[in-house]
């Protein structure tokens, strides 16, 4: 318990900038999203027409369901592949071998890359006619797949790009988690004759589970919300909507098609999703600090 300064006014002054910003730029616009989701803008854009839950029932159209499925498949792949690979990398980078500091730097630098940078680079390496990876694939399989025309392959390529960009972040946090596991515990198990696999499953993995859950949630949020730049740079949702994730569709409907009410209904669905994830987070982990 910290000692208290007697000032009555000062805490309010100190908090006011943060509170004002949250209310003005986050809470009020979110409530407006909720309000707008029950309206549609008139053809001339000058007034709002109440449409009850039409915007929500319109979410049951094939286009939106397609976006939903694409997002779930893409995010699921990013989370599973990312966490499995990065846990393995972090385990290797947690060993005491010569030059480990250099190796760690060699694994975490993708953290600094943006989704858009990841997008241009992976668009290059998978360029259908000249890209290095396209070339390697054609050497191995004899065929040159083209993600600009092949929808499922486009999903694979954006998944690889998005997972690659998250390697640094995931390794940093897995390493931080691994370093909190007492070495004595693992050495004791080793003396008792537990093999490496057994030590991993019975000690490391359970003790690491809070960090794994944290990363699971952060990677899910990343897949849902932070890949817009990557998609916009690489595919613009194509080919034929194969990579049109929810956020891309929301942007398209809200800012290109100018269907404000419909886009707002999509915002509310995303909010329900975030609220669910947040509850999960509070339910299972009491003592985390969150990082973007």
């Amino acid at each position, binding site marked *: 318990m910290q000692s208290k300064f007697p000032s009555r006014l000062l805490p309010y002054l100190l908090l006011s900038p943060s509170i004002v*910003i949250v*209310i003005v730029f*986050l809470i009020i616009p979110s409530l407006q999203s909720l309000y707008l989701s029950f309206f549609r803008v008139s053809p001339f854009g000058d007034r709002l027409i109440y449409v009850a839950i039409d915007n929500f029932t319109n979410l049951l159209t094939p286009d939106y369901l397609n976006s939903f499925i694409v997002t779930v498949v893409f995010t699921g792949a990013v989370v599973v592949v990312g966490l499995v690979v990065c846990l393995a990398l972090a385990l290797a980078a947690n060993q005491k071998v010569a030059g480990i500091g250099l190796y760690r730097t060699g694994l975490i630098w993708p953290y600094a890359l943006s989704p858009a*940078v990841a997008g241009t680079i992976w668009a290059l390496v998978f360029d259908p006619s000249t890209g290095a990876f396209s070339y390697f694939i054609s050497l191995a399989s004899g065929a040159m797949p083209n993600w600009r025309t092949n929808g499922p392959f486009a999903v694979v390529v954006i998944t690889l790009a998005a997972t690659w960009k998250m390697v640094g972040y995931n390794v940093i946090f897995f390493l931080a988690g691994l370093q909190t596991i007492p070495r004595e515990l693992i050495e004791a198990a080793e003396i008792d004759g537990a093999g490496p696999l057994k030590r991993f499953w019975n000690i490391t993995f359970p003790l690491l589970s809070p960090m794994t859950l944290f990363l699971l949630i952060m990677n899910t949020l990343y897949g849902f919300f932070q890949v817009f730049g990557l998609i916009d*740079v690489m595919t613009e949702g194509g080919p034929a909507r194969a990579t049109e994730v929810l956020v891309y569709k929301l942007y398209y409907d809200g800012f290109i098609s100018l269907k404000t009410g419909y886009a707002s209904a999509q915002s509310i669905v995303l909010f329900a999703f975030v609220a669910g994830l947040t509850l999960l987070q509070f339910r299972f982990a009491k003592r985390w600090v969150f990082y*973007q």
Partner: protein
Amino acid sequence: MNRKRYFHFFIHLILIVSFVIIAFPVFYAFIVSTQTFQDVFVYPPKFTPGNDTIQNYVAAWETVKMGRLLFNSTLISVAVAVGKIVLSLMAAFAFTYFGDFKGKGLFFVIILITHMLPLPIRIVPTFELMRSFNWVDTYYALTVPFFASATGVLLFRQLFLTVPASLCDAARVDGITPMGFLMRILIPLSRTNVSALFLIEFLYMWNQYLWPLVVTNRDEMRVVQIGLKMLLAGQAQAADWNIIMAGTIIAMLPPLIILFVMQSSLVKGFSMQEEK
């Protein structure tokens, strides 16, 4: 002992191979950024540097006014990182050193709620708000809505709670004011966490894409990330990959340099948290 040698060899091998795989796309992007347009379109692809390095970087720089974009990105990233740090230091101080003032719990919830309201949930009304403020195409729109930080408040609050109470008591015996205590004692104590947070928030802002795309129209107000899209725009089949990659390398250098320079603060900032 021999087993240990094999094990270490195996770990080195895994780490080196992983590094090569992870770094390859960037390495290849760099190679392409040095090649001529003809080099890019040979088959099989060339993995050796070309002779057009300077031309490509100059072309990328001039096509999208890269100097201006870099300036904009740097300005908003520094402003947002500093703004978030200052506001969250103030808020965390209010939450830890003033007892149970009225509304404390509510204010805490309001700040935590930012985690539940990512931009896509409120993007259309927030954009309308920018329009009504006449903030479209201004630095205000690119910075002010980002200033609140639940991450920062939680981080500093946690840190302040571990500061020994005797420190504050002693300072108060010496007649220190609340703001004096914050400025002269708490902030210097938080140095490592301040730099860790600066790094995280700088990278976060530098890499923003959707919001800058929505609230800026004029080329002078665009940021580096959108510049990449502008380089790609209009490229149908035969893209000028050499020029696009030069732009990509330019766009990724500032955050990479900052990460390398400040990497140790990140590690220390975390481990401090974890241990105590």
